[in-house]
């Protein structure tokens, strides 16, 4: 069913008239800019000065997110934590993407391979996600590496599922049969004929994987796995603020969580808009 969407392209938009595609692109670039800014500034924010004179201060113009029990500026800690989270999310997404591409292409080989991939996806889906992450991070011995691998090795299932069904559909096409009859190897068919067609699926999948990875990273560090208490990860900051909840220091928990929410929303936003651009059904609107 084709839905008609009301677009008012003629109208003046912001500074100059633009169509929906330009608007979407501008939105994507702006959101990406915010995230890159957070990441880069988080990277350079390693040493946060402590001053016990200004400990546990309410949010003010000087410390817009307030200060914690050691007088550290919560805004700096939050940005540093977000930078760390984005980095973990990035590595985890790369790992997950590689796994899902390999499994997706592997499922094109033959029926047994396809069933195996389906079985592995089922197996990973049958254990609650958070327990699975804990399980894998324990296997890698915990620490930052354990968290990254735990998050990275568990987020590939939705993308792999999409790729598998996509591959199944592509496999029915005639040029695949032709290539097989010409004696091309399975690997050749997979990389030359199937991979180029699923690239857009992969790009969207990766961007939408990001927010999940970041959220799970925060959850797992909140529970106390992985990162040591002095690392300013968002999960660690929130776990620490748990001790001060009953003292009424609400800003310790509120602002870091809110920032995490905004970052996750930005990623979702980028993902949806990129999908809009890449999907041929909506790209021309």
């Amino acid at each position, binding site marked *: 069913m084709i839905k008609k969407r009301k677009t008012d392209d003629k109208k003046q938009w912001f500074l100059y008239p633009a169509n929906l595609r330009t608007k979407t692109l501008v939105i994507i670039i702006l959101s990406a800019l915010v995230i890159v800014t957070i990441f880069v500034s988080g990277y350079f924010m390693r040493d946060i000065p402590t001053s016990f004179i200004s400990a546990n201060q309410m949010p003010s113009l000087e410390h817009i997110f307030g200060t914690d029990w050691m007088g550290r500026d919560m805004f700096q800690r939050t940005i540093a934590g977000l930078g760390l989270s984005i980095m973990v999310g990035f590595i985890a997404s790369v790992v997950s993407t590689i796994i899902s591409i390999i499994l997706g292409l592997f499922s094109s080989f033959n029926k047994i391979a396809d069933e195996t991939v389906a079985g592995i996806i089922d*197996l990973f889906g049958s*254990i609650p996600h958070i327990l699975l992450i804990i399980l894998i991070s324990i296997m890698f011995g915990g620490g930052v590496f354990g968290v990254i691998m735990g998050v990275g090795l568990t987020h590939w299932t939705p993308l792999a599922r999409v790729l598998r069904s996509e591959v199944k559909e592509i496999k029915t096409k005639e040029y695949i049969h032709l290539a097989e009859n010409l004696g091309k190897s399975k690997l050749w068919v997979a990389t030359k004929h199937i991979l180029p067609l699923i690239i857009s699926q992969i790009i969207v999948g990766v961007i939408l994987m990001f927010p999940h990875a970041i959220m799970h990273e925060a959850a797992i560090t909140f529970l*106390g796995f992985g990162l040591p208490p002095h690392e300013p990860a968002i999960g660690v900051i929130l776990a620490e603020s748990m001790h001060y909840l009953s003292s009424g220091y609400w800003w310790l928990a509120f602002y870091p969580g809110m920032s995490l929410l905004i970052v996750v*929303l930005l990623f979702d936003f980028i993902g949806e808009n990129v999908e809009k651009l890449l999907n041929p059904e909506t790209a021309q609107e």
Partner: protein
Amino acid sequence: MNKQKLIKFFSYKLIRFIILMIAVAIFSFVLLDLSPIDPVNAYLKGAAVSEAQRQILHQYFGTNVPLTTKIYHWLIDLAQGNLGTSLIYRMPVMDVIIDKFLASIVLMAISWLLSGVLGFLLGVVAGKNKGSWIDKAVKVYCYAIQSAPSFWVGMLILMIFAVYLGLFPIGFGVPIGVKSTDATFMEWASRLVLPTLTLSLVGLAPIAMYTRNELIQVLSSDYVLFAKSRGEKGWDLVKNHGIRNILLPAITLQFLSFSELFGGAVLVEQVFSYPGIGQTAVAAGLQNDVPLFLGIVVFSAVFVFVGNLLADISYYLIDPRIKESEFND
């Protein structure tokens, strides 16, 4: 419903269940075996023992045998329902899991029901009034709550209701210093309100979004146009043509959310210090209690499978439209 088909359905599911359980058991066992946790060290917790005693313990736990033998022993024990002894609680894992799960099941069941009912209602209201402020509000809420970490939502609720308003106790299953068997119903129930509220508020987002989108699609279909032209309108129209169509998939979706429910319970129980299965899982993971953690993983897999099975039953056996078609893939 014909009987033969039912038997076929359930035997298919049973075989699937057994295969899946064996796979989960082996998978989680191998993962934990690969981990650098030394079971004997975890058992001793740093107590000083001589090398000879250490050897005896290795012998006793059977840790220095090949991996295949270990897996074989583990599967045999699992089939007999013997999950070993927890290192934290020093009692059989099975007892610990049952004990903790009973505390969690109340929490999970109430929030599952609440999130399902509330989510469905919100979805219907939003879908019926598409484009109105209420639709926008529901949409914004769902987007925000799906992007918010559930433990953070729990912390906010804790801050508002327990710390500022002081309506509810801050945490724990029963008051400090009271045995869980001695606690009065009110003491116990008042500590259940906030975790349940958190889990419900978080859990209703997907179901509300799904219901909203489905209802909008149904309302833009040709048969609803026809019904409108016959003069049906308002709530009756939604009830007769919308809800009948979207209720069943929504229920199926809600059953499929058992996995997220469990994950949410892990985080929320941690925030509210509620002594349930989730908090036990975290404690087991942090303190290297391998038998307990393995037991919980296997148990949670059973839990998720039951959810999927119920979803399949509601999908294949109740839905009149799919009754005729086959269920084997």
